[in-house]
């Protein structure tokens, strides 16, 4: 035990005292336990969607608009998804993907890995914005039924964000999702 020795003289009151360290340690341990129990270990994240179509506003005068290919993901079918590449209103290509749910987690979560693989393959073949210095992303437009539950919408957006590409931010290259997702407002 820690003590303070200041010398002692005769019959006077004792001047040597032991600091009671054990209760102090008990108190500290209680404090540690309380703080650990009340600590917030956040598992929250976010998934992006963007209403700025075709991209963020620019101060430069608009040049002649070149029609870009957009990927339209149609999720209104009960048995299949439809991936449609469009240039303006012109349909370039249409691909059907079987709607096959795969469970992912104990809380009834599910994913669409077949859809994710097909979207990745399609971006590899037809994606426009690939260079790390390219600040624009390819656009995906999601078509949903009004009654579709939000969890299903997130599962499809998650599949759309599967393909990733390099992206330069301040001289540093990071990985970002290849597509930017927005909703079809119909």
């Amino acid at each position: 035990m820690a003590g303070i020795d200041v010398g002692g003289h005769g019959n006077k009151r004792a001047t040597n005292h032991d600091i009671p360290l054990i209760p102090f340690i008990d108190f500290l341990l209680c404090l540690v336990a309380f703080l650990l129990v009340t600590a917030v270990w956040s598992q929250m994240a976010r998934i992006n969607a963007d209403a700025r179509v075709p991209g963020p506003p620019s101060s430069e005068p608009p040049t002649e608009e070149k029609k870009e290919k957009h990927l339209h993901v149609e999720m209104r079918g009960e048995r299949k998804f439809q991936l449609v590449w469009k240039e303006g209103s012109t349909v370039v290509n249409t691909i059907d993907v079987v709607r096959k749910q795969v469970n992912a987690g104990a809380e009834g979560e599910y994913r669409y890995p077949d859809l994710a693989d097909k979207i990745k393959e399609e971006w590899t073949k037809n994606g426009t914005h690939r260079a790390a210095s390219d600040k624009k992303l390819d656009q995906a437009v999601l078509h949903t039924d009004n009654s579709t539950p939000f969890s299903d919408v997130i599962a499809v957006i998650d599949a759309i964000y599967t393909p990733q590409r390099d992206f330069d931010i301040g001289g540093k290259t990071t990985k970002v999702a290849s597509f930017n997702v927005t909703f079809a407002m119909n």
Partner: protein
Amino acid sequence: MSAEKPLSRFHQAISVPGRRLMHHVPLAFVRKKVLGGGGRAVNQEIPLIPFIDFLLCIVLFLLASFSASGELPIDKNVKLPKAENVIDMTDAPIVAITGTQILVDGNPAGSTRAIVEANRLQKIDDLFARLKAKRELWSQLNPGKPFPGVVVLQVDRKVPALVVKSVFQTAALGGFPNVSFMVGRLGGASSSGGGKE
């Protein structure tokens, strides 16, 4: 001089080295103690001071990272979906959509019932007014800075897409076109996906 002759035969000025004091104490265990013999000491001091230092460091770290209200206020009625390709959370206004209510940073800003009953996409006036006010307040507090226009939607997993799209559209009209959906992390994925920040 033979080897058997005892040394005490002579009147010696120098005697055989060894302990002299306390030799004649009659109690054996006392004699053993006072002579300083015996094995290694069995009483050990636990070094408490470094242990206390360590505990103090932990306490200080935990106190520094302690948040009385929690990091993210999640409405207890909202059960979030989970996703793999996500990015880290950002500091932005939170629009929560529970079963029937729409809340902006905890304050009521409309009802989902009207949208579901109308069964068509529509602008939510209360939400629009609240978001517009937030945008104007931000512009007054940060003059000259470009407005980020980020809003985080905290949507229950059972809410129909019609309500989500209505809120999405209203947020865009209210000056928050950069919409993020709050989700849980699924399977410990890296935070590199989920779109450009």
